[in-house]
């Protein structure tokens, strides 16, 4: 039986760009699917097809068991959509926004009013309920947008990059709301550029690139493919490289790698922050002076490098091209060698705004 969100062979082209190039999805009821990919990968286009906003060139899809192409209006009754750019009317108050959306979901005026009050309370917007949304902070607007998507507590939710541009505190708060939502039985499809977010929220992850799903699995499965986390140490003087390497190999789960000119030693590990503390104690105990030490978790780029041999690039991204070359060299070497390249390089390549989402 197909899941609460099901898609088969979705294709959508915009001019020469194949925004979706044969995407299959199957999200069991009550679970969360994370669509992970860089800007322009086709994530937003997939959401727009599934929420009836655009028609695919070919393929089929159903949401909550209803055919998206044949019965779009019925699908709209069963879904909530929270967008990348908070779609609230900035000249309406928070309360007016929610009441309007409720009425357009065909609730009675009275029900819509009551529901708006409930949601404003729940989303910590009660004090600001009668102020126009223009005066809200970014986090408040995002909460209002999410509240608008939840007016009818739809069984299936779509969130397009829900936390992009939010500060860590607001991101954490939004994550908690999403977890509560899923605990209540909602099926969720969320798109994100952050592996950490997908890791935190999603049961299953689909990695998309150039309109195709290039990998799918749980976050552990994906991380296993990308080498997981690693410890990176920069020692004070060159003679400490060898002893530091010996210490790290003792903690490591794979081959260590050494970059002499930067005095950097890297090794894949598992065990997180606790392990990092042990490494520091051990290095200190042996009198090895360090300039820098960090626990690196795989980023979206690491996932991409290991899956595709190139960084999370866009069609226009020249920097991503060079980063991709470095990444290819990394994967052909020892595990974790990718970490010896400057990790900020690929990260810059996926800076939001540097590229355009295909459908926007």
């Amino acid at each position, binding site marked *: 039986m197909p899941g609460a969100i099901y898609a088969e062979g979705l294709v959508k082209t915009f001019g020469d760009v194949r925004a979706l190039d044969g995407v299959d999805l199957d999200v069991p009821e009550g679970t969360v699917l994370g669509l992970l990919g860089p800007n322009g990968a086709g994530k937003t286009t997939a959401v727009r097809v599934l929420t009836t906003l655009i028609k695919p060139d070919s393929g089929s899809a159903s949401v909550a068991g209803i055919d998206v192409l044949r019965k779009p*209006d019925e699908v709209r*009754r069963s879904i909530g*959509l929270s967008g990348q*750019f908070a779609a609230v009317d900035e000249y309406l108050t928070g309360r007016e926004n929610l009441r309007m959306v409720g009425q357009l979901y*065909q609730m009675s005026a009275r029900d819509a009013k009551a529901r708006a009050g409930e949601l404003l309370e729940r989303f910590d917007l009660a004090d600001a309920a009668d102020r126009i949304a223009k005066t809200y902070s970014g986090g408040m607007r995002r909460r209002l947008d999410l509240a608008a998507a939840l007016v009818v*507590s*739809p069984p299936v939710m779509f969130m397009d990059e829900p936390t992009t541009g939010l500060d860590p505190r607001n991101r954490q708060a939004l994550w908690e709301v999403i977890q509560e939502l899923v605990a209540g*039985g909602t099926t969720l499809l969320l798109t994100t550029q952050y592996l950490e977010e997908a890791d935190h929220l999603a049961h299953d992850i689909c990695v998309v690139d150039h309109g195709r799903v290039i990998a799918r699995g749980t976050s552990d499965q994906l991380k296993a493919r990308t080498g997981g986390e690693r410890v990176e140490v920069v020692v004070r003087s060159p003679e400490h490289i060898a002893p530091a390497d010996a210490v790290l190999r003792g903690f490591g789960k794979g081959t260590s790698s050494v970059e002499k000119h930067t005095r950097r030693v890297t090794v894949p590990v598992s065990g997180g922050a606790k392990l990092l503390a042990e490494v520091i104690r051990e290095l200190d105990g042996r009198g090895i002076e360090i300039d820098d030490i960090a626990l690196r978790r795989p980023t979206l780029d690491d996932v991409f490098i290991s899956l595709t041999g190139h960084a999370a690039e866009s069609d226009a991204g020249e920097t991503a091209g060079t980063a991709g070359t470095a990444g290819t060299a990394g994967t052909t070497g020892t595990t974790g060698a990718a970490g010896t390249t400057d990790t900020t390089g690929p990260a810059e390549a996926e800076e939001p705004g540097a590229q355009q989402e295909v459908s926007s």
Partner: protein
Amino acid sequence: MSVIGSPASRAAALRVHGGIGRSVRDSLVVAKRNLIRMIRIPEVVIFGLIQPIMFVVLFSYVFGGSIAVGGNTDPNAYRQFLMAGIFAQTVTFATAGAGAGIADDMHKGLIDRFRSLPMARGAVLTGRTLADLVQTALTLVVLAIVAVIVGWRIHEGVLKALGGFALLLLLGYAFSWIGALIGLSVRTPEAATSGGLIWLFPLTFISNAFVPADNMPTVLRTIAEWNPFSATVQAARQLFGNLPEGYPVPAAWPMQHPVWASLIWSVLIIVLFRTLAVRKFRSATA
């Protein structure tokens, strides 16, 4: 029960509306939203008022003494003649507002929000055009008062005058659907504003609104006489009793039957552009 959980209970409580009832209800919800916006951004309404008032004053006093209508060079005769033209120009300039508003909604992602809701498909646009109609009506009231102050009068009774205003509003409503289509077709509110205005200048000037068409070159005169805009201006003039004595009524059918011509034109424009705009809305992508 958790506020954000339990989807099944909520979804079941949804009432299912269909057809016309839903269309009307959703349109009114959206119209209310747009009217609230107008109150919160009064600058738009105020600037919308200043422009036609300036036109009334400038045309009356600057051109008034130099333009003869029906052989009559009395500035007051021109003032009577002019008002229907200014009223008609004012209602059509509201199209730019509709276009800019809709382009802005597209730009901000609100159209996506609306399109993902189980609401009547045409309601977002109908709500917008209805709100614009209310704004246009208010503008006309203020403008009529200013016109009376500078000496404009009606001569055919209140009922006929109201009929004249009704035709003007219908024309404005029809044009706001053209504005809606423009707003859906351009990428930014700025483009919608300028794109919504430029074509209005030839439309309103190649007409009988500010000067009689009979002194124009033949081609322009024919365009002016068949211009939907001219039909409404002529109809309003007739219903206000503002046609000066000795003013020759052109032989073209719309000028001979301006009330019918005005009605037919406006209804045709609504049917055509509403169809096009709603179709565009269904496939709209920001």
